[in-house]
């Protein structure tokens, strides 16, 4: 017995601590930074810089933007419609007479609001659902998996559009507010959180430490919140960042087709681009170029952060997600092909 004891202890420690034992630093993200090197670190830093830049722009939009996003005049003087970039209007003037620079700056605010709301909503709905479904199993699990599986087969933009119209009760207004846009996007991403959390839960359910807790008599609620949650929630930040980029594109797609944010409620890059289609036909490039570049830049930033986080934090996810880059463990290992 005395020989067996340390062995038992060590396995328990390995299982219970290893998944959550990665956090060493008090500053969030510091470990991730430390675990990177070379190109990877460059990607992460570049991504963080871009995201921070947009966050700053979004927060200080009223200070940074020279005009309001819907203003077609200043000091009683109307802007000349579709005038090209100049000293007064760095990014030119849109077809409605709005300053493109101001629209782009305020667009960052809209994008950020929608994305944060959508990601938070998806996590709040998707994670508990996945946890319960994965732990309890049975018919509930089967039904939920079947539904999410079918939703995966569905072009996500279509889903978002239909939900967006449903929320606005099919009125002929151009889209709705920030919240309805966020909900439309949420519907697309809840299945992803659900799936990842559910699979992690199913895998963790039979682990010895859960078994032990169950044997002591912990009720399911405690098991889920205290023992399983901490271990299955680890992949969530990575999915959240990867999804955030995707969500920005979905929002822009919604706006482009006219189901996004109401133009008076906020500046939205996709909607601006949809109005710029006809301008492009006349060779007026500035109304489409700048909002488009803003989308590209912020998505690149978020994607770079998500990709590097994915590599660093989540070796487990990598086997499931085929689109990922290489394993850092193997990179650092003895073998290298050249």
């Amino acid at each position, binding site marked *: 017995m005395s020989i067996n004891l340390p062995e038992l202890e060590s396995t328990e420690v390995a299982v219970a601590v290893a998944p959550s034992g990665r956090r060493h630093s008090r500053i969030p993200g510091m470990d991730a930074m430390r675990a990177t090197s*070379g*190109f990877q670190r460059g990607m992460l830093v570049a991504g963080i810089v871009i995201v921070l830049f947009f966050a700053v722009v979004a927060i200080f939009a009223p200070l940074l933007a020279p005009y309001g996003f819907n203003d077609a005049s200043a000091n009683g003087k109307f802007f000349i419609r579709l005038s090209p970039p100049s000293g007064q209007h760095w990014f030119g003037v849109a077809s409605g007479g709005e300053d493109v620079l101001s629209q782009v700056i305020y667009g960052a605010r809209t994008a950020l609001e929608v994305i944060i709301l959508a990601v938070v909503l998806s996590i709040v709905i998707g994670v508990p659902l996945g946890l319960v479904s994965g732990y309890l199993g049975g018919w509930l699990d089967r039904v939920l998996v079947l539904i999410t599986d079918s939703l995966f087969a569905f072009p996500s933009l279509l889903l978002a559009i239909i*939900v967006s119209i449903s929320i606005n009760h099919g009125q002929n207004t151009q889209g709705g507010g920030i919240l309805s846009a966020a909900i439309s996007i949420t519907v697309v991403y809840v299945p992803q959180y659900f799936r990842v959390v559910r699979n992690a839960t199913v895998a963790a359910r039979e682990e010895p430490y859960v078994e032990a807790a169950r044997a002591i008599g912990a009720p399911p609620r405690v098991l889920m919140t205290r023992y399983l949650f901490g271990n299955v929630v680890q992949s969530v930040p990575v999915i959240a960042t990867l999804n955030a980029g995707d969500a920005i594109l979905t929002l822009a797609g919604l706006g*482009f087709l006219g189901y996004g944010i109401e133009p008076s409620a906020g500046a939205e890059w996709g909607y601006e681009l949809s109005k710029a289609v006809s301008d492009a036909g006349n060779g007026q490039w500035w109304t489409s170029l700048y909002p488009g570049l803003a989308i590209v830049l912020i998505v690149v930033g978020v994607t770079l952060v998500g990709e590097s986080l994915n590599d660093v934090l989540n070796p487990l996810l990598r086997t499931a997600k085929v689109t990922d880059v290489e394993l850092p463990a193997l990179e650092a290992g003895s073998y290298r*092909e050249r």
Partner: protein
Amino acid sequence: MVWILVTVVFFTVRGIGDPIKSAFAGHLSDAEIAKREHAAGLDKPLLEQYWHYITSVAHGNFGKALTENTPISHILIVNGAATLELSFWAVIVALAVGIPLGRVAARYRDRLPDVGLRLFAVLAYAVPVFFLGLLLKLLFAIKLGWLPANGRAGGQIEPLLNSVSPNTHIYAINAILYGDPSYFWDVIKHAVLPAITLGLLVAGVFLRLVRVNLLQTLRSDYVEAARARGVHEGRVVRKHAFRNALIPVVTVMGLQIAALLGGAVLTETTFEWQGLGYKLAYFLNRRDFVAVQGIVTAAAVIVALISFVIDVIAALIDPRVRY
């Protein structure tokens, strides 16, 4: 699975409102609207409508669009052919760009070409399809005037192409049937920009996939054995690893079809390409939920079918996968 999709679509789409009311309110009397709703079966209880819809879809009957007098099945064939044509060109572009570049990236791992290509993949993912489409249009259609900006064929050519019998609705084939090479050329020129736009959406994914799978295959024992025999590295990649690395790519291609269809909506809107996506946006704006649910259901069925076919193909290529 298809049944669940049909059900989800049916009940969500009801939320987009009443097309007859929204189209004719104010123009027609209430009695007339009620009459039209009765004719369309909209006054029946929802469950009865649902049952009716399910049974008719099972028989391949999607009903008629409410806002125009065309059967949905006709729209699915005519506009579906346009989307099929566009998707075909897009997949060609995606494969032609993604696979060779993924190979290059894996071959020169962590060196300059690889880094550059990985950034390209991220960029290809980050560019919204409609923005890329607009930029291409601005540059090649409007500034340089090399390629047409909109549509599937020139204004005079389109009706001629549609008069071909048998009409396949796929213009490239119709043009061949028509027998005038310049028409075929015209069709191809119209397809270039949309195909690149939609193709690049998927090309980045293919690039990364090929790269990762090739890197994984290059680590396997048999590749090591080939190296140990003194086979040149370029030949190892070409002859030994590449084919096996493609197997997972085939599987993911199936998953990408859904993304392709979603992207097709935006691409078709940008280029006024009269496909299913273009039609879908059109019917959505008119709140014609019968047409919307028909098109969306068809899209879902197509995605489900394609992923099944892809599974079969994967099993054929890879003897380890058996069902």
